[in-house]
């Protein structure tokens, strides 16, 4: 066995309303065909964890695009731009969906694409993954990593996020993998159970895995929340799930 070569670039992509943004594009070297994955970053922004997670998916064979959801908010370091986005309450769900659709189109347009595209997101990106898997056509697989506010109290809804993703569950049109820490508070184990019950009642295809000894963001090696054993198992489940559904 050897390690696969990967190629990494920051590339332009066409997002919501035809606007051009930037994305981190990492993919295996070679002719392919390769499946694609859109990686949705979390609220703090287009940060190092998400970029490294994209490369982690490229190594086993997934052409991965992590588009910058905040590209409309000016220049600067990603953490400064992330702070601007947070101060404005994040981005709207409609704009996010347009950007993710553009990212999926980018991946499918590559000459070495196999035509299948999945989505993965962490934290708020997990919520956005759930929403994208319900609202966008032609998503082949979705991985929600501890997405908070999939089930949202009505008081948490606003103009940018007018509908809780759970309310679109009947429209989920691809297999979903969910990874959650049992010590997490958002989503809490109770919220995860309720989400699973809804998916089960609707007859959707899903796998939910819950980890003891882990809370939120247990993949993030830069934070005290990192749990190496649970993260390694979780990454294996992510890669197996994408191999099964995107290969």
């Amino acid at each position, binding site marked *: 066995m050897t390690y696969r070569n990967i190629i990494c670039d920051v590339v332009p992509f066409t997002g919501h309303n035809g606007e051009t943004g930037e994305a981190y594009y990492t993919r295996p070297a070679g002719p392919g065909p390769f499946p694609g994955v859109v990686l949705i970053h979390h*609220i703090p922004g287009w*940060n190092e964890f998400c970029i490294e997670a994209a490369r982690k998916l490229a190594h086993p064979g997934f052409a991965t695009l992590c588009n910058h959801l905040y590209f409309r908010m*000016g220049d600067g370091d990603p953490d*400064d731009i992330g702070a601007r986005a947070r101060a404005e309450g*994040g981005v709207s769900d409609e704009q996010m969906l347009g950007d993710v659709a553009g990212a999926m189109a980018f991946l499918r347009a590559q000459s070495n694409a196999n035509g299948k595209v999945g989505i993965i997101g962490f*934290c708020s990106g997990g919520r956005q993954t759930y929403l994208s898997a319900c609202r966008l056509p032609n998503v082949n697989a979705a991985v929600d990593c501890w997405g908070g506010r999939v089930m949202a109290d009505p008081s948490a809804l606003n103009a940018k996020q007018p509908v809780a993703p759970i309310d679109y569950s009947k429209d989920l049109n691809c297999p979903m993998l969910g990874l959650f820490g049992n010590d997490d508070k958002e989503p809490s184990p109770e919220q995860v159970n309720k989400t699973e019950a809804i998916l089960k009642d609707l007859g959707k295809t899903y796998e939910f895995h819950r980890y003891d000894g882990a809370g939120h*963001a247990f993949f993030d090696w830069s934070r*005290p929340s990192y749990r190496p054993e649970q993260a390694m198992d979780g990454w294996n489940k992510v890669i197996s799930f994408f191999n099964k559904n995107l290969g």
Partner: protein
Amino acid sequence: MCSYITEKAPIFGSAKGRSGWMRVDTAVVYYDHPVHVPLDHALNIDFVDSRSKERVAVELSAASARELVRRIQAALDSGEAIHLGSGDEDPLHFARAM
């Protein structure tokens, strides 16, 4: 969690950022994932110049932030008792009070 719990305050003041001193007009306060401090969640404050969009950011533990609140209040209480007078009016809030 990634929350959208954000408090914004209009302020009158200055801060020293990467390009030197600047006026700051907004403080954005949130309790969520920090970028740098080794905590899962922190009380984060951005002092922002909304024209240049430059900011001075701090990330504090919750206990540190509460201690800072107490110290700010103590400094204000003792300092204003001695010094508050002509020349110390905050134009922002002075204008609002008019």
